């Protein structure tokens, strides 16, 4: 009885307490891609009370201390705190982290962690860039990874991948600055990277200093871009479907003057040159009123040919999961990007698709098999099938720019009787673009990429603890076949409005020519790669020891050429004491058959060390909030075997060439000629690279930053001697004499904050790289300003603009060219050598190279419950853009708004453009006289990508769907550019005419579902 009483008493006293304190919470942990298994969920402030999420990300936890919040952690994600509402159910959406101390960072042939890393590596996770609506992974990296410089030259579907460099450029060799690209240990070519589907990517790292690239030795001097693909994780199958569709609009639509204004300017230019006007006042009036649309047409050919927008769509399905024995990741992707040309073919032509387009299908299966207790194997298989279509006419945008081929008044869109017109009174008299697009057929390239990788790893821990051996064979091939359906010039007619008669274009017949079909093949590459590793990783007390010995051999061939072979050995050793004192040694020993046997192999050592002050007791006491405060430095040697010229520059050979014709029948007699002299001692370029950095993490990793400073001395560069007289009579081989210095900064800052349940991140990135040519055996120049040495690679040279010639007296008293005649309103240049004549001696370094030396990015993101927003601003500074040719020159380019601001006697002071002239070689032509009037210092900032997403709460989801997310994303959304008046995209190639396919802005809606 007493016992009963005691029990009752106990219940009365304790039960109410425990009812309040012990609260059941259920929930699910996930990220944007779906559930996260194995995440730790524990009661806030009570680390001992925790559980792990299951395969579906679900968990069940009893809160014991009366609190109402949970803490959730998972490797690779920002730690999250969540309040449990009255329902007792929570959905935790985790944010991927970029600066966790223990995050795995992929480096060359292995992995490292932020805390122990001593080399220069920047990493980005595939998740972050997955939703950027572009076909090419390199378009997504700029502004996110410090040290990468990109320029997207064209927006053509299938050919819109950006050029990219790591830490700028430092080789005088034009092809010698492309980074090495390694995808799952297979070397990819520069343009193969653009074929990869971002959905397959787990992470991308760029390796920047000698400590990380020395192991690649002879191929490491330009930095390395390492891509790893996604692999299966333990758990039940998870199926992810992602489908999106978007609309593409040019970032910048050029504006051309109409026929009336163009005709006025044509007449003005002719009058300036003393020529008779081309148009009478009556013509001008008719252009203005538009009363005579066939006799005096006025067509804006851009608007006539291009659509306002075009579509793109992307669908990806992947499945991953695994058991102890087999883990798998399989994906399938389909991408399609349409071109921006209107459909002319289906109405008037043969229904051929002559528009630009790009379609790509790809698949990947990555299998990991645990064959025995110690033996694991991997089998990766991936294939990509791309198709790029182009109309069978020249660059359409280029033609629309080109005044010699189309003018607003040259032809009506179609003649009154429905027949096609041609550009009357132009040199080439081409039928109108709409006719050629309808009737001239297409050129279509089908490209296949196939990669197979087989690898095996034997764990030798039974033998020596921490030791393993592995080997792999990879096969990669790329081939393409093109199909061209083309016909001769279709008939077109000039309609004479006065006599109402039609005249056939003399360049064609009356009959429609038949189509001819042809095939072509431009790529056929094959590569076999073999690798073997001996790996050692063991921790003894406070010491961690890592070691790696590797053998690597690649043989690649293209078409019928003899394969180029590469073979290398590498050793890497690391010793880390208490994660405080860090030391890494790297050694690459490898060779390439581009060089003579005795010059083939080179040794590339690098050493790097780190000191993590945050682990020192005094520091810990003084600054307890600092989690990581690590100085690190590296120094080493890397090389590059990319050299111009034929594959065997070390020996002189004879070539076929120099044929001549003898005999009454003009029969060609074949010739043999001496090839360029060989250089027996030719060898690789070398780069001595220094890197100094500080890695800091503060306040539970909410703040982290990395500052890096690098100095590269690239020497022994293969350049063609500029100081050899042509009386030698033969080309010379390049010699290892060029020297370029390159130095700069990489800065990355990362702040993760939280206000209530709003989590946000601010991540600025700054990359600076400035190079300078120290030596390149330049011929001696007669004036110091003519030397290219001492300037950056790609330094433009030109005249210095000092105003317009004001009047005849000014012309007579000023320096001027001795060719052609000068008139008031012409561009006046500085006479550097003071000889009264403007000629080549007066050209000096002007402006900057086209590759920006400063690249910045700012990523901002925020997440509130299921909503997230992420934007990236990217900008480039300190570069120049040269305007010339069909981009700007009168009678080569369409007349543009800038031409309205030309110099005239009435507008002598505010002119933005010189006097108009018909003379293509006048002093006003940038082609003949490049100057800083035409070479503009440029900078831009782009709202490069935007993502808005909403994660649908799991409890609302029907069927077996466990994750659903809706998102809007955009690419190149807005651009702020300092020289917009010239209507060029800020990323077009300098000195090109800026008439390539317009870069596109993409706005995209997507849905992602997981099962």
């Amino acid at each position, binding site marked *: 009885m007493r016992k009963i009483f005691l029990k009752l008493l106990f219940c009365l006293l304790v039960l109410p307490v425990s009812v309040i304190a012990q609260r059941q919470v259920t929930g699910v942990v996930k990220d944007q891609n779906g559930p996260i298994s194995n995440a730790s969920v524990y009661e806030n402030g009570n680390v001992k009370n925790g559980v792990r999420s299951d395969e579906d990300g679900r968990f069940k936890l009893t809160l014991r201390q009366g609190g109402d919040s949970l803490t959730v952690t998972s490797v690779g994600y920002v730690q999250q705190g969540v309040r449990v509402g009255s329902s007792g159910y929570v959905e935790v959406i985790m944010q991927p982290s970029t600066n966790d101390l223990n995050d795995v960072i992929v480096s060359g042939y292995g992995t490292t962690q932020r805390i122990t890393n001593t080399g220069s590596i920047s990493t980005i996770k595939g998740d972050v860039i997955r939703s950027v609506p572009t076909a090419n992974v390199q378009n997504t990296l700029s502004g996110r990874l410090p040290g990468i410089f990109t320029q997207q030259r064209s927006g053509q579907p299938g050919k819109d991948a950006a050029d990219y460099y790591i830490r700028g450029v430092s080789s005088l060799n034009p092809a010698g600055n492309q980074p090495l690209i390694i995808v799952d240990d297979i070397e990819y070519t520069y343009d193969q990277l653009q074929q990869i589907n971002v959905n397959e990517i787990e992470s991308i790292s760029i390796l920047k200093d000698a400590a990380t690239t020395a192991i690649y030795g002879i191929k490491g001097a330009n930095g390395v871009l390492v891509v790893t693909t996604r692999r299966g994780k333990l758990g039940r199958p998870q199926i992810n479907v992602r489908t999106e569709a978007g609309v593409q609009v040019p970032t910048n639509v050029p504006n051309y003057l109409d026929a009336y204004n163009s005709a006025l300017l044509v007449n003005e230019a002719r009058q300036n040159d003393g020529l008779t006007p081309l148009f009478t006042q009556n013509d001008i009036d008719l252009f203005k009123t538009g009363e005579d649309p066939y006799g005096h047409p006025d067509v804006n050919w851009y608007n006539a040919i291009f659509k306002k927008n075009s579509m793109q769509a992307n669908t990806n399905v992947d499945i991953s999961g695994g058991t102890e024995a087999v883990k798998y990741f399989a994906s399938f992707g389909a991408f399609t990007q349409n071109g921006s040309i209107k459909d002319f073919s289906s109405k008037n032509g043969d229904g051929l698709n002559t528009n630009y387009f790009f379609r790509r299908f790809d698949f990947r299966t990555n299998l990991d098999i645990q064959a025995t207790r110690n033996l694991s194997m991997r089998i990766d298989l991936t294939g990509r099938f791309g198709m790029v279509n182009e109309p069978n006419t020249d660059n359409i945008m280029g033609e629309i720019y080109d005044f010699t081929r189309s003018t607003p008044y040259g032809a009506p869109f179609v003649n009154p009787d429905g027949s096609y017109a041609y550009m009357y009174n132009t040199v080439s008299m081409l039928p109108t673009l709409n006719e050629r697009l309808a009737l001239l057929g297409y050129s279509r390239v089908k490209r296949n990429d196939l990669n197979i990788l087989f690898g095996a790893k034997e764990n030798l821990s039974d033998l020596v603890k921490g030791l393993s051996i592995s080997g792999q064979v990879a096969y990669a091939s790329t081939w393409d076949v093109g199909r061209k359906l083309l016909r001769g010039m279709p008939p077109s007619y000039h309609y004479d409005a006065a006599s109402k008669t039609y005249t056939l274009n*003399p360049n064609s017949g009356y009959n429609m020519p038949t189509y001819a079909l042809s095939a072509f093949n431009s790529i056929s590459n094959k590569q076999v790669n073999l690798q073997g590793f001996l790996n050692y990783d063991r921790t003894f007390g406070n010491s961690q020891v890592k070691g790696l010995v590797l053998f690597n051999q690649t043989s690649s061939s293209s078409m019928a050429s003899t394969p180029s072979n590469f073979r290398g050995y590498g050793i890497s050793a690391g010793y880390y004491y208490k994660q405080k004192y860090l030391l890494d040694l790297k050694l690459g020993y490898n060779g390439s058959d581009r060089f003579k046997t005795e010059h083939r192999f080179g040794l590339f050592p690098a050493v790097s060390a780190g000191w993590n002050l945050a682990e020192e007791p005094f520091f810990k006491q003084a600054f307890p909030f600092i989690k990581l405060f690590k100085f690190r430095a590296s120094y080493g040697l890397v090389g590059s075997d990319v050299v111009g010229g034929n594959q065997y520059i070390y020996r002189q050979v*004879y070539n076929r060439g120099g044929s001549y014709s003898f005999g*009454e029948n003009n029969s060609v007699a074949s010739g043999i000629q001496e090839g360029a002299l060989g250089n027996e001692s030719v060898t690789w370029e070398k780069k001595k690279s220094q890197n100094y950095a500080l890695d800091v993490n503060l306040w539970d990793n909410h703040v982290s930053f990395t500052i890096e400073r690098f100095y590269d001395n690239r020497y022994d560069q293969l350049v063609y001697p500029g100081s050899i007289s042509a009386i030698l009579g033969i080309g010379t081989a390049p010699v290892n004499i060029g020297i370029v210095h390159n130095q700069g900064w990489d800065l990355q800052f990362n702040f993760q904050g939280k206000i209530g349940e709003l989590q946000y991140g601010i991540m600025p990135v700054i990359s600076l790289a400035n190079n300078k040519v120290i030596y390149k055996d330049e011929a001696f120049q007669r004036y110091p300003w003519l030397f290219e040495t001492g300037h950056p690679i790609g330094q433009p040279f030109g005249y210095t603009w000092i105003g317009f010639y004001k009047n005849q007296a000014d012309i007579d008293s000023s320096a001027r060219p*001795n060719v*052609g005649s000068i008139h008031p309103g012409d561009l006046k240049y500085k006479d550097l050598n003071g000889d009264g004549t403007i*000629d080549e001696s007066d050209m000096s370094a002007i402006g900057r190279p086209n590759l920006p030396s400063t690249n910045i990015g700012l990523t901002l993101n925020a997440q509130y419950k299921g909503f997230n927003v992420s934007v990236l601003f990217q900008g480039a500074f300190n570069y120049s853009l040269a305007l010339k040719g069909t981009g700007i020159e009168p009678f080569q380019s369409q007349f543009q708004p800038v031409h309205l601001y030309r110099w005239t006697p009435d507008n002598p002071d505010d002119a933005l453009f010189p006097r108009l002239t018909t003379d293509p070689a006048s002093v006003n032509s940038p082609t003949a006289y490049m100057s800083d009037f035409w070479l503009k210092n440029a900078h831009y900032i782009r709202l490069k990508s935007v993502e808005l997403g909403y994660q649908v709460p799991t409890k609302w989801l029907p069927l077996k769907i466990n994750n659903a997310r809706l998102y809007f994303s955009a690419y190149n959304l807005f651009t702020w550019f300092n020289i917009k008046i010239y209507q060029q995209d800020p990323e077009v190639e300098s000195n090109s005419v800026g008439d390539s396919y317009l870069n596109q802005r993409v706005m995209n809606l997507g849905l992602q579902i997981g099962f």
Partner: protein
Amino acid sequence: MILIVSFVTFTVLSSCSKTWEDEPLERFTDEYVWDVHDSLGQKAGDFLNQIYSYLPQGFTRLDGNYLDAATDDAISSQPGGAVEVMASGGISPFNNPDDNWGKMYTGIRAASLFINNIDKVPLSIKLPDGRSMRPVWKAEARFLRAFFYFELMKRYGGVPLMGDKVLQSDDNVQIPRSSFKRTVDYIVQQCELAIDSLRPDPVDMINLGRATKVAAMALKARTLLYAASPLYNGENIAAGDSLSGYIDKDPERWHNAAVAAGDIINLGVYSLDADFRDVFITAGNSETIFARNAGDYHQMEDDNSPIGYSGTSAYANGRTSPTEELVDAFPMANGLPITDINSGYDSTNPYFQRDPRLYYTVFCNGTDWLGRPVETFNDGLDRPGTDKVQTLTGYYAKKFMGKFETSTSYANEHQTFIYFRYAEVLLNYAEAENEYEGPVGSVYTAIESVRQRAGLNPYKLPADLNKDQMRAIIHNERRIEMAFEEQRYWDIRRWKIADSVMNQPFHGIEIIRSSSGALTYTIVPVFSPRFTAPYQYLYPISYNEVASNEQMKQNPGWK
């Protein structure tokens, strides 16, 4: 398992190393070209063919224009091109559209390499006359090398003579220029060495285009003619500079030139072709001594036909506009210059009864072509006044074109760019002999035979001409006979008349057609050339050559 992996790796590795060759086996090395077993010398023969390919290109080689568009004979229809730069005195050490320096030295090197190595090849082939081929081939290379030096000499004066040496990359390439005299002597000596070994004339049809004995004689004769000319012989632009010319004046040099040309005439192998136009479009005619097969094509027609014919066959781009000065240089068909009051020239009907060569050289208004007369009156089909490139002078260049007066379209022609033809030899002889001996009978004979073939009637010249009158006639005869053959450009230099010829405006003709069809002709200036004497008489050595070779002396006056 690990063993299996190792084994697989090993087999793949070892098979790899055996699959591929280590060296570029598909490439030619010394041993292939100078093959010690090849009695046919096939590869060596191909090497010789290649040396020919360095012979200068002719015809419309400068942006679609003839070199002659940089003289008072013509201008480019499109402003701003290479020839306009040249006609405006725009050649500089940095910019010379007609540099040719590197190409000639490439040819010189190839020829020397051939001469040095051909003895390794056990040639057994023979000429039809039984002579072994080896000395023939060697002489061809020697002749070509001399030709290349001549091309350099006329541009630059004395140039570095490389001898038979073929330099390698570690050899000293800092070789100074030889004097003008040594350069001339070397060319002449090399020609003389080659003359007796070369193929006899005329060469058989399948070897048309190969150097012959007379080709070497003609090169020698032209070299001596140039060397005897005022620019080098007595009027050196920098007195005492042995690089830019002779440091003395010696009339014997005219004699040497006359003898060298006379030797060819005396051989009697070549003769003037009865039809002036056939010389340029028929293979193996009696007049052509050495020429380059340009191809069976209608490039001349495409480049230079009056633009109103575009579409008739291919293109008609009218790139070169002959000047009024050239047209006026042609006499009347009666042989009298149009300035002669007895000539019958009518300025209101200027193309009536002129030297037939005018009609073969220039398209004037009314010339028949492809079934209709050319219309170069204002707003005519061939001068429509649109912004299409068209004649600036009222004339188009016609020389070298086929006989398409009544055709409906162009057909391919066997087109040869002639380096040496017999008419030039006659004119060379006449010029040199007139300078040396005065207007003796053989001078008359030579020049009258050219005029006779041209179709002048009477072709005889007045018998009482003095030396200066004869010189004027010879100079004019060279101009009209060899228009567009890259002669006048060099002639106005070696005669040292470029500073007067090239510093006055060139003219064209404006033709207005009234509603009744009557034509009025007005001569108008169209282009102002520029030529700065004396330094522009020689080309500047390109800046890179001066900068890279401490021994290289720039030509006088060039900075």
